[in-house]
């Protein structure tokens, strides 16, 4: 079945450093979504990418969708303590379900 792999599984950064998480699939994706889950909270939608090579920005967050639509990345510039949480990608290949990646847990050290 569809598998979406995320790396790294964990990331510790000093406040102010950059952070990147990667999402990879062996099959072509219809689209990809990114969610953030704060500790003790539930996933919250961040963004959706649909087009090959698409790049979207939200303040310090930059989202990219690969040209082949098999991978995606989320980059955070100058991390802050409010960025702490687990970041999930979720991909759709054509069926109605979203397959969630394993997540990257970000810890920001003040």
């Amino acid at each position: 079945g569809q598998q979406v792999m995320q790396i790294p599984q964990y990331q510790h950064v000093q406040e102010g450093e950059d952070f990147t998480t990667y999402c990879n699939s062996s099959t072509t994706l219809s689209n990809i979504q990114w969610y953030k889950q704060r500790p003790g909270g539930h996933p919250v939608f961040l963004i959706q990418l649909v087009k090959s090579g698409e790049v979207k920005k939200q303040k310090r967050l930059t989202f990219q969708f690969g040209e082949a639509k098999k991978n995606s990345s989320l980059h955070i510039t100058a991390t802050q303590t409010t960025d702490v949480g687990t970041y999930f990608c979720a991909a759709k290949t054509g069926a109605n379900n979203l397959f969630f990646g394993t997540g990257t847990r970000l810890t920001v050290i003040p």
Partner: protein
Amino acid sequence: GAGVSQSPSNKVTEKGKDVELRCDPISGHTALYWYRQSLGQGLEFLIYFQGNSAPDKSGLPSDRFSAERTGGSVSTLTIQRTQQEDSAVYLCASSSMPGTSRTSYEQYFGPGTRLTVT
């Protein structure tokens, strides 16, 4: 407006007992999803409802798990003869439309029900 609500927020049950978890999606949302999240793990898809269509049950881990969605709104996830490995947070999400094969609509998650089987 009101978001997705789930009840109970916490449930402790003895092994072998049945439990029912409830989800109230956002009004007007036609798609409803159930996920399971074990401690520190990712989201495991369980079941998907869309309007009056037959639900996609492909993620249910065993026949002890079942779900219903009455009137296209409220959904109940039932776990029969609970086992300790069923302990997890059960998350419900809804979206306004399921999307086409190329697009999706964002999912709005409820706060989850934390199930502990002793």
